[in-house]
């Protein structure tokens, strides 16, 4: 697995880069890649939300005024928000020949993230039926990281968005992942202190190396 730390990248540019890398991965020209980056403010619609914007609460005008563009993407899942302070990870992994199982892949992503945040003393877990990683007491969990994946011939793209020190008020523009009754949280909120993004990246890379 090769890791690319890209810093802040526009959503559209990251989409292009992923597309190119997926092609190269399919041809066996490159190894498995883990892209780590941040996006400027953006709201993205997954496949589930295609053609249905009811989970985007803000009006198009309000979004434009806030300077938040809207993107239709090919990943799985509903609506999400990306922005500064959020660590976005796009694994471009070839799951062939022995990892061809989408559930297992998603569970493995969750496992890596759970381990990564555990290194900072945050106890996160899964909520059955709701992909992502969550913290808090049962029934009142808030979402720490979102997951949305695309697979083409068992090569993965898109991935996860881990709230490190995200401005959580930005999620007010949407219903995250189409789940109306659950909130979002960040590592900074959980710990009551700010974190260095590079430090979180290091931990995530270590956790990915362990799990994948």
């Amino acid at each position, binding site marked *: 697995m090769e890791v690319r730390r890209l810093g802040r990248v526009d959503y559209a540019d990251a989409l292009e880069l992923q597309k190119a890398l997926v092609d190269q991965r*399919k*041809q*066996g*020209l*490159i*190894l498995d890649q883990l892209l780590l980056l941040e996006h400027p403010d953006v709201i993205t619609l*997954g*496949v*589930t939300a*295609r053609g249905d914007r009811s989970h985007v609460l803000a009006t198009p005008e309000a979004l434009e005024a806030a300077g938040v563009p809207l993107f239709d993407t*090919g*990943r*799985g*899942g509903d609506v999400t928000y990306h922005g500064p302070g959020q660590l976005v990870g796009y694994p471009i992994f070839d799951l*062939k*020949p022995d*990892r*061809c*199982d*989408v*559930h*297992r*892949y*998603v569970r*493995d992503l969750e*496992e890596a993230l759970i381990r990564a945040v555990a290194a900072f003393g945050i106890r996160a877990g899964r909520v059955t039926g709701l*992909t992502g990683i969550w913290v808090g007491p049962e029934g009142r969990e808030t979402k720490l990281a979102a*997951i*949305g*994946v*695309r*697979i*083409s*011939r*068992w090569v993965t793209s898109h991935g996860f968005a881990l709230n490190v020190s995200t401005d959580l008020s930005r999620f007010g523009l949407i219903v995250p992942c189409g789940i109306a009754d659950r909130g979002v949280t960040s590592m900074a909120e959980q710990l009551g202190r700010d974190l260095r993004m590079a430090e979180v990246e290091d931990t995530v890379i270590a956790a990915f190396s*362990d*799990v*994948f």
Partner: protein
Amino acid sequence: MATNVVMPQMGESIAEGTIVRWIKKIGDNVDRDEPLFEISTDKVDAEIPSPGAGVLTEIKVKEGETVPVNSVVAVIGAAGEKPAVSEPAPKPSEMPEAAAGQPEAAPAVAAVVAEARRPESMDDLRRQKSSPLVRRIAAEHNIDIGQINGTGISGRVTKHDILGFIDTAGKTARPTPAPGVQVPAFKPGERVEIVPMTIMRKKIAEHMLASAHTSPHVYSVYEVDFHRLSQLRDKKKGEYERNGAKLSYTALIAKATVDAVRAFPFTNASIDGDNIVYKKDINLGIAVALDQGLLVPVIRNADEKNLLGLARAIEDLAARARTKKLNPEEVQGGTFTITNPGIFGAVYGLPLINQPQVAILGVGVIEKRAVVVNDAIAIHPTCHISLGYDHRLIDGADAGRFLASLKERLENFDESWM
């Protein structure tokens, strides 16, 4: 002939899938492996390639609908076919990959599904359920995970279990040795340099090992007199150059080979279980040596090209193989391969078959040798051609007939073919 497209199984615990988008519409032409539709399950969206080529004649499952795995979601008809008509019973010869007695099964979908379907013995379940870390430890220590009693969820072997097993095994027993004699690649203290294999090297290693395991290889070698061929080549070289093509021996040999392959269909076949699959298209692979590794670009429908077309295609593919500008589909789908072990002077080579093909032609060095012509000694350029073939399908006599025919075609190369 119609091909049913089924909902693929994307994981062992996945029983159904939702179609979120049809990339193709009814009446659209589709190529095999071209993205056909997208499915969604558990926050994962997957693009599903078409199992065959033809026209999308029927969509049985609409966008947004969820159906069980293996349900038929669409039908692909032969090119030019009208949507949704009743199909005549498919002939076996036209359904090379379908399982016998299951004319309904869509050929390549079987492959798609097979990719996702898992064996289900307890050992297999344990192996699948163990984490990548555990599997890696198991591989490093050469341990069969099935031997370990897992204490994790549903018998899953945890890291703790496997480390415990290694600890105990170290004291009481040795790990199961791999089959065959394992000689260490180097001894401690030996002066070595360790370089990880490139991806291409790894792929070649996998393919070659698989080929050696799959096909019982047998070889026949013939000497061919190139006297006439070299004279024809000298005579026509200039004309071809003016047409922008290099009249190489490879092109001449390719032309004669394609004609011979067409005359002997068993050389253009594959084995599928107990069935022999005769390929109607002759897609000729030409092995190209690179600085590191090799590639086998494929000339599709090589039998439909004349010598000029073949010469151009060979030059183009070889050049693009060396500059790494081939598209993935240009190295796939070959049905017969020519390789050139003579390039550095080998008299002949004994190449391994490029699976799932059943034969490969090796071309040795072309050099002047003393030959007997009408009971006199003459000096002619000659070449040794070798055929590596899969004895499951091709017997020595068959290979002999094919090579004799190829020799005849090369020695008496018809000027009208040029």
